């Protein structure tokens, strides 16, 4: 039987790298119905369905794929939406290779790739959007209770949608002028078109969720006021605050955090300056520090806004790099240069305070550290990499605006909220939290999973079934 399964995933059409580095259009173009059905047929509908356990929101993957095989796309998307409110987004940005697809039985057959579950999820979500009106599920009887969600990112939007479906009166507070969180300010247009996020946000609004933008909880509305006006609160403010290595020269002109660079381009649309008012100055030679997904996003964005040469500087090697393989491949195809085993020691500036290069320590790999990856150690040699723009993408930390105004909320030693991972319950009665503000920077789908679990727990708490604070 196994012999009948094509070993490789049905390829997905992509924009040519030579062209796409000049535009912000999506790189991966999506399956046609025929391609989707062909790919769905690679699924053997195995009874053990290990893929489901690999999914943080436990989508019934074999069932939705079975419907695709049958050409019943409506049933396929309805199946997904029982578990996931934002399938068009997850189909695009989930690291499926570490989650559902990592568990796929087909991939256990020598020489076989897993079923392209992510591409199929994206296909049916996009198919539904093309049909025009997106189906709105029936809302159960109103519960007459109010829930506040702080932060309109993946965790918050998911919690809000689930709670609205259960009949709660949900208000989402978002500090930015647009909901979506990292999906809007962080992930670039060419990887996740903003219209898709907008479409999913519209869906959530149709569920009855109120979204209040430009409200910074803790500042625009004090925490006490929020706690007294709502029966429960879910905090999903993310880990959007930038970290800097802190080497000399960090405040030179031309040194950016990836958050600033991506926010200017993605949220503020600086790539359309002067049509849009927010400017960006892109160097000719851009050095991006770090090799995670954000670093890939920043590097590929720099290329699209006109950099002549973009380099990624990473203290370890390709093998330890945290970026998704797909993103790395895309970056390589687009001509990003990789400088492995280099650790910035100083950003060097000219007399006017503009950055002109990065002085790096040359590293080599030593013994494995606590993450299991081999630790980079300096060799004693140095290297100078010329760059007139530096973008640091070395990780994020807790968004502190709310936390600073909420001292009674317990934090862990890394400054994130100390919340129960299963329920999201914090030490403050009626307050739940989930997503990056609890775990530190992770993935969109993990944040959604946390939002879903918290929504269930909030329901149990508000209906009097369970109270962890008693």
């Amino acid at each position, binding site marked *: 039987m196994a012999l009948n399964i094509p070993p490789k995933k049905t390829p997905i059409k992509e924009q040519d790298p030579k062209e796409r580095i000049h535009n912000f259009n999506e790189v991966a173009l999506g399956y046609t119905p025929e391609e989707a059905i062909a790919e769905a047929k690679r699924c053997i509908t195995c009874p053990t369905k290990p893929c489901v356990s690999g999914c943080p929101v436990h989508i019934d993957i074999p069932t939705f794929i079975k419907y695709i095989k049958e050409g019943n796309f409506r049933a396929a998307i309805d199946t997904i939406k029982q578990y996931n409110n934002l399938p068009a987004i997850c189909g695009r940005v989930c690291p499926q290779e570490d989650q559902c697809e990592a568990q796929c039985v087909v991939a256990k057959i020598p020489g076989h790739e897993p079923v392209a579950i992510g591409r199929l999820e994206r296909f049916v979500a996009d198919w539904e959007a093309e049909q025009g009106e997106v189906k709105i599920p029936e809302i159960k009887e109103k519960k007459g209770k109010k829930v506040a969600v702080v932060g309109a990112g993946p965790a918050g939007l998911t919690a809000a949608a689930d709670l609205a479906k259960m009949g709660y009166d949900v208000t989402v507070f978002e500090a930015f002028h647009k909901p979506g969180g990292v999906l809007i300010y962080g992930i670039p247009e060419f990887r996740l078109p903003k219209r898709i996020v907008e479409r999913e946000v519209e869906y959530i609004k149709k569920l009855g969720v109120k979204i209040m933008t430009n*409200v*910074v909880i803790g500042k*625009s509305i004090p925490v006490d006021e929020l706690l007294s006006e709502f029966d429960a609160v879910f905090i999903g403010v993310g880990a959007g605050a930038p970290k800097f290595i802190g080497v000399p020269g960090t405040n030179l002109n031309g040194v950016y955090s990836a*958050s600033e660079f991506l926010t200017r381009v993605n949220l*503020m649309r600086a790539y359309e300056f002067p049509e849009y*008012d927010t400017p*960006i100055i892109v160097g000719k030679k851009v050095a991006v520090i770090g090799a995670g997904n954000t670093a890939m996003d920043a590097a590929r964005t720099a290329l699209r806004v006109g950099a002549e040469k973009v380099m990624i500087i990473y203290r370890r090697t390709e093998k330890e790099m945290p970026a998704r393989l797909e993103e790395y491949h895309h970056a390589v195809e687009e001509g990003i240069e990789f400088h492995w085993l280099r650790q910035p020691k100083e950003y060097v500036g000219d007399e006017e305070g503009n950055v002109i290069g990065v002085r790096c320590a040359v590293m080599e790999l030593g013994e494995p550290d606590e993450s299991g990856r081999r630790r980079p150690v300096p060799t004693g040699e140095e290297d100078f990499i010329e760059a007139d723009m530096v973008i640091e993408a070395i990780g994020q930390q807790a968004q502190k605006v709310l936390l600073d105004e909420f001292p009674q909320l317990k934090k862990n030693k890394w400054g994130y909220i100390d919340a129960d991972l299963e329920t999201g319950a914090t030490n403050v009665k009626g307050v739940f939290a989930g997503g990056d503000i609890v775990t530190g920077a992770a993935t969109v789908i993990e944040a959604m999973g946390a939002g879903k679990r918290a929504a269930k727990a909030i329901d149990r708490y508000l209906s009097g079934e369970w109270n962890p604070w008693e």
Partner: protein
Amino acid sequence: MPHKILRKRKLAHLVHDFVVEAPLVAEHAKPGHFIVVRLHEHGERIPLTIADVYPEEKAFRMIVRAVGKTTYELCMMKEGDEILDVVGPLGKPSEIEKYGRVLLIGGGVGIATLHPIAKALHEAGNEIISILGGRSAEYVIMQEEFKKFGEIVITTDDGTLGMKGVVTDAMEYLVKERGEKFDVAWAVGPTIMMKFAALKGKELGIPKVWVSLNPIMVDGTGMCGACRVTVGGEIKFACVDGPEFDGYQVEWDELMRRMTQYKKKEEEAFKRFLEKVGDVSWL
């Protein structure tokens, strides 16, 4: 929710006084807080300061000087027009307490930023002397308001009102000639003025000069680090750690350099704007 301009009047050439509807700002702003505004869908996010709040009208007052595309555009708006986004109040509030004798130094529209601080310091029982500086008489705004809090000393660059000179000259006059002693000072105005007011304050032995920084910002909530400034050898974000800092600890030259980062782009946008709107000499 858009924010209606309830009242607007011209104070001086390119300086306009607004009352803008924003219930959350009106209700929760404390002295020292600031706001971020975005005028329209294509607009940039810029930080502006709060001159006063009117909770009964759910509105706040801001005084804006037109210096570039966005501020020109804002100053050209009329009563009844709507500002798309107003976010705030943001930042840490001023440390208001009873210090004793307080010197307030305001330059240009920085005088407006200083106003809520002055009011609160006055209510806290401090004795206040205010130095208000401007290029010429018409730019010395809010004189009547500040008179309520104590003595005012006016300086103008061209001598059209008060002392001819700059605010640091008035600081010298008060401390050296009149022998005034101050327990603390606030200096708010153009960055160059704050730098020299801090230097002068130190020279004159004032224990501390608070300054309110206005670097380039994007989100205003600690998410991007555009506004980072070195204070006491450490990197701080003006939006969440400030905007007020100890003026003796600020690395002024770095800050001023960082503020010029987008100069060329700003000029380009402004030129393009002027071509579109024509003569703006009336503003």
